[in-house]
């Protein structure tokens, strides 16, 4: 089947115009492996069709692109892009919002735990 008209060519334009060290020329199948497992987890076949995975990837990239653009518009008013901009964008979508706050709080906890771990390591080091 022909590729959907979403995302493919415009992404490469974006990639080439950015002078970033990782010029993201929108290679095919960037998320392919992860997406296969994810789609199985959400209800697809254990081996999803490759064209389905490619389509989902295109859609996801377009979704993230639109989301990031909107977040940037919001963030530009404040000066720079921050996490709150994304959270503001999904404020209406409760499951996503809750999930994101959960992820952020978990990340904080893990950071604290890692810090505590390093402190312990130092203590052990000085003891010896």
């Amino acid at each position, binding site marked *: 089947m022909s590729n959907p008209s979403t995302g493919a060519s415009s992404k490469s334009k974006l990639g080439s115009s950015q002078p970033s060290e990782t010029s993201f020329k929108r290679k095919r199948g960037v998320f392919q492996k992860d*997406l296969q*497992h994810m789609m199985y987890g959400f209800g697809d*076949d254990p081996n999803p069709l490759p064209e*389905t995975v490619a389509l*989902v990837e295109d859609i996801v990239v377009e979704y993230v692109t639109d989301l990031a653009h909107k977040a940037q518009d919001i963030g530009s008013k404040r000066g720079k892009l921050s996490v709150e901009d994304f959270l503001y964008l999904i404020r209406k979508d409760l499951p996503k919002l809750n999930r994101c706050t959960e992820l*952020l709080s*978990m990340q904080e906890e*893990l950071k604290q735990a890692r810090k505590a771990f390093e402190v312990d390591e130092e203590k052990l080091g000085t003891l010896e």
Partner: protein
Amino acid sequence: MKQSKDPFEAALEEQEESPPDSPVGEDELNSQTPNEAQNQTDGGQNILVDDDDDDYDDLGPTIKNPSHPSSSSTPKLHSTSVNASVAAAVTNKNKEYDDDEEEENVDVELSKFPSSADPTKMAKMQAILSQFTEDQMSRYESFRRSALQKSNMRRLLVSITGSQKISLPMTIVVCGIAKMFVGELVEKARMVMTERKESGPIRPCHIREAYRRLKLEGKVPKRSVQRLFR
């Protein structure tokens, strides 16, 4: 069709009858120690388990899966042997943030469950999870464990925004949002398939129809500027 509906209902009934597994004790905890180093990409992280236990004290019992290696943990958690794998989960969760190893524990994902750290919820989850068939368990494992790579997401965000300052929390949040979006797509595609009375793997036409419906529902951000020169 959703497989998850039946076991939940069955488990809810089951929960009334039989209490969660009684504590098994240290033996199982110790027996899992040898398996510690197997799938750990970063051995040093194991020690984190002890510290993480403080944070994850309320982590409920998870399914003990003896076929999978798991690191041991101090028995600060509930006494079910299952909790040994919880600690593994905690440790491995650290690494999930670093690299998405598909070989990690089943139990890895399950520890993240107590969103509310509520004992009744944990008991319910355990009751449900114990009812899973192998097929359901593997699907659930894929669901919990799969994630989009943070590095790829970061690269994508950098190329979109043009700014190099993409913080780690931002990457994590966007990965989470994208994963849930994939879930919505796939679930809706399955609904479309049942409406059309088709079966088998999901085809692109189902995804497109699902995407169209999501757009109608307003769950997809609309482009304020028209896409030109595609």
